[in-house]
Structure formats: structure tokens, C-alpha cells
């Protein structure tokens, strides 16, 4: 779609559509809460099974929760700066690129949040991500590839998507998901490993042969399936959040076509991201692993491009 043919969809007062955006946000938040609660439940059940097999189910649950809380606190205190350093992102000075700073500050005004710190990554692959648990302490990072390959409107649409993540609390939310999934994986792994080394007779309180065997079976089944299910849930939440951030981007810029153009450009660019890895792939606006660029399967962190564009078009009408 040539940029010159695009008619900007911009109205000074958008009375009706805020309801649509707000409805979208409410539905998405409810879904995400449900998914998060499911993960916590899985962790709790796993903890209970492990605990009850080795003695006390309550201690098992408590142990699981404590593990998750500790990991979350560590992530919350230093998480974003660690991620930025790991990705090789450097803070940007206003004098180096006033236009980019302007673009971000303008959208921060539209969003009603303080402007996040801007970081730049030396990489030809066009991509962007956001970190930070609260809007007051948030960062947004973009690659030099993105900066060069998008025009001002498309750049602003991408930035609006990222600020949408910040404003909707996605960055903190996804860390919570990762911590839960990690804890589930850890406990499952420990449980399965202890069986491999033959600790069948180690239950301190034999609750009677039948009960013990049932718990054992449940524990094995759960330890095998829980990590799988938790990853599916995490991916589902991630996709929901991407849709929501797209909707927020349109709400902020009032220019759906800019975002559509940007997403198409980003997805079709074949350059792979140098520092992409599984731990951070979900944070980017498009999946940095170009092999999975079509996305859309149950394990994808990002929805299919076609689906994203369809939802955006639906917002226009």
C-alpha cells in the first residue's frame, strides 16, 4: 500500500471508539487475569502434589509460591536494566536524534504517561521492545534498523504500540508469567529427577498404600504435562497482549494504516536480529526469529500478521 494513497483517519473528538477500545481492554484484562490465575493454580497443584508425596502438601504449595515470589522480586528490582544491557542497548541523547525523541514524547503525551527512557540497539533488523514495571520507570528500545527503515508515521505507530505495552502493564505481567512458568518447570524437573534416582520409598508419612500410589501417579503425570500447559498458557497471554497493544497503538495515534504498514514492513524484512534468544523473543513487536515469522501456532508468542491486521482494520470501522 503506497504511503501517498493513505488517507489519515484522524478525528479531533473520538466519542464512540473509546468505548470500543475500553471494551477491548476490559475483555483482554479479564482473559489475562484468568490465564494468570490458571498458571498460579497449576503451580499450586504441582507444589501440593510434590509436598504431599514427600510429607506435607501445604509446605509444597508454600514452597512453590515462595520460589515464584523470590524470582519475581529479583526481576522487579534489576530486571529491566539487565535486559537492556544484555541486548546491547545504549541510552539515546536528545541531541543525537531529536526527531526520534520527539516522536516518543508526542505519543507519551497522547497516552498520558511520562516519557520513557529511549535506548538504541545497533542492529539492522527492524524491531523494538519495552521494559519497566511501571510507567514512571520504563524504557523503550529500538534497533537502528527500525529507525532507518520506517517513516515518521510508522515509527510513531510502533512507539505507540510499545507505550501501549507500558501503559497496560504488560512488561510486568509477562515477567510474572515467565517466573511462574519457570517455577513450574523447575519443580516438575526436580520431581521427575528424584524419581529417576529411585526415591520411591522416601515418603516420611505413609498415608496408606493406595493413597500414596495415586499421588505418585498424579505427580508424574502432572510433572510431565504441567510445563507444557504452562508454556501454552504463557504463549496465549503473550498473543492477547500483542493484540491489545496494537489496539492501544491505534487508539493513541488514530492512524491504523500507519501501524499496518509498519507491521508489514517489519514482518517482511528478512534480516534476523543478532541478539535474539528465546528468553526475550516475546518482548519484541514482531518475532525476532524470522523462521517463525508466520506465527499463529499455539506456542507462538506473537499472533499471525494477517490476524493482527484484520483486528486493526476492524477497529477502523
Amino acid at each position: 500500500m503506497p504511503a501517498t494513497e493513505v488517507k489519515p483517519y484522524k478525528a479531533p473528538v473520538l466519542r464512540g471508539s473509546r468505548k470500543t477500545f475500553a471494551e477491548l481492554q476490559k475483555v483482554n484484562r479479564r482473559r489475562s487475569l484468568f490465564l494468570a490465575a490458571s498458571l498460579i493454580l497449576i503451580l499450586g497443584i504441582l507444589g501440593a502434589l510434590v509436598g504431599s508425596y514427600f510429607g506435607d502438601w501445604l509446605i509444597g504449595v508454600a514452597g512453590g509460591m515462595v520460589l515464584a515470589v523470590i524470582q519475581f522480586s529479583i526481576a522487579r528490582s534489576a530486571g529491566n536494566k539487565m535486559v537492556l544491557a544484555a541486548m546491547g542497548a545504549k541510552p539515546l541523547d536528545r541531541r543525537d536524534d531529536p526527531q526520534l525523541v520527539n516522536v516518543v514524547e508526542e505519543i507519551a503525551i497522547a497516552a498520558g504517561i511520562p516519557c520513557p527512557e529511549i535506548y538504541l540497539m545497533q542492529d539492522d533488523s527492524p524491531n523494538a521492545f519495552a521494559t519497566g514495571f511501571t510507567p514512571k520507570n520504563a524504557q523503550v528500545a529500538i534497533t537502528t534498523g527500525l529507525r532507518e527503515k520506517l517513516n515518521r508515521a510508522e515509527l510513531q505507530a510502533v512507539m505507540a504500540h510499545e507505550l501501549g505495552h507500558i501503559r497496560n502493564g504488560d512488561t510486568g505481567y509477562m515477567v510474572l508469567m515467565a517466573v511462574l512458568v519457570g517455577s513450574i518447570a523447575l519443580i516438575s524437573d526436580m520431581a521427575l529427577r528424584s524419581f529417576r534416582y529411585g526415591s520411591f520409598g522416601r515418603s516420611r508419612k505413609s498415608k496408606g498404600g493406595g493413597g500414596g500410589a495415586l499421588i505418585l501417579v498424579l505427580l508424574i503425570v502432572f510433572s510431565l504435562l504441567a510445563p507444557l500447559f504452562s508454556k501454552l498458557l504463557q504463549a496465549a497471554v503473550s498473543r492477547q497482549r500483542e493484540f491489545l497493544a496494537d489496539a492501544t497503538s491505534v487508539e493513541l495515534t488514530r492512524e491504523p494504516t500507519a501501524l499496518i504498514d509498519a507491521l508489514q514492513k517489519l514482518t517482511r524484512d528478512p534480516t534476523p536480529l543478532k541478539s535474539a534468544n528465546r528468553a526475550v523473543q516475546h518482548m519484541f513487536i514482531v518475532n525476532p526469529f524470522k523462521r517463525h515469522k508466520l506465527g499463529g501456532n499455539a506456542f507462538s508468542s506473537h499472533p499471525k500478521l494477517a490476524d493482527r491486521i484484520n483486528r486493526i482494520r476492524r477497529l477502523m470501522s
Partner: protein
Amino acid sequence: MPYFLAAYTGLWIGLGVVVLFVLMFVGIYNGLVAGRNSCKNAWAQVDVQLKRRYDLIPNLVETAKGYLKHERETLEAVIKARQMAIDASSIKEQAKAENMLTSTLRSLFAVSESYPDLKANQNMMALQEELTSTENRIGFSRQNYNDTVLGFNNRVQQFPSNVIAGMFGFKEEEFFELEDQAAREPVKVKF
């Protein structure tokens, strides 16, 4: 179950319901207060961005003056309009003056089209970006104000918060609307 819980179950349930209502009440009231303050803050934001434009214009005029020796009236129109906007006392007056300022700026940029030396000036190019950004910021801050007002008005009108809003005199805020159709167009800063 301890005696004091079992015997007076009805009482405890009633107490629980009352506590729940009180919490809801306080929550809704505080939400309305926060909403009204958000509207005031959003309105102040618009003023901040308008002021930013006022501050940029002297620099613009200075840079252009050297090149636009024969376009005195255009420059002076901009300076005058800016002063009028700063001096405006009522909201209506200010909105009118703002529109005036926008059209004088538009004339200035139209005139500058014919002066390639001015176009190439580094300072001018930086100013071009700053002015584009300023126009965008003004637009976005107005948009944010309207969005905030919409959210607040919904709360004032919808059940159950409308009950509490009525009790404490929370009124709907007004949307910001541009009366002049021409002023809806952003100042096209295209060199």
C-alpha cells in the same frame, strides 16, 4: 464453630455486606475525584504545549528574517498573532488567537517555499522538525484531554457511580472542540 460466630451468623453477614458497601462507596468516590483531577491535569498539559509553540516562534522569526527581507508583513503577522495569543484572557479568545497564529504560520511557510537558501539553512530544518512536533503535541494533548474527559463523563453518567456523583456534585466536563474548520488542518511544515 465458635459460639459468637454461629449464634449471630445473620449479624456477621449483615456486617460484612455493610463493610462491602462502604468500601465500594469510598472506591467510587475516590475514582471520581481522581477522574476530575485527571481532566484538570490534561487541560493544563494542553497549555504547556501551546506555550512551547509561543517559545519556539521568536527563534523561527529570527532565523527567517535574514532571508525574507521582502516579506516583512508575513513575519510581522506571525509576531502579532503570537502576542495576541499570549495576551488572550478568556478560553474563547485564546482559541481564536491560536487559530490566527496557525494561519499566519502557514502563510510564513508558504512564502518560504520560494526561498531555497532559507530551506537549506540547518537551523531552519531543525526548527521545521520542532514545529511539526509542537503541532503534533498540541493535537495529542487535546486528544488526551478529550479521552480523559470521555472516561470521566462516562463515570459521572453510568450506574452506580452516577448516584455518588450526584450526591457530591460531580459534573460532566466539556470536550474541547475546534470551531474553525480550517484550523483542524495541521500546519503542514513541508519544505
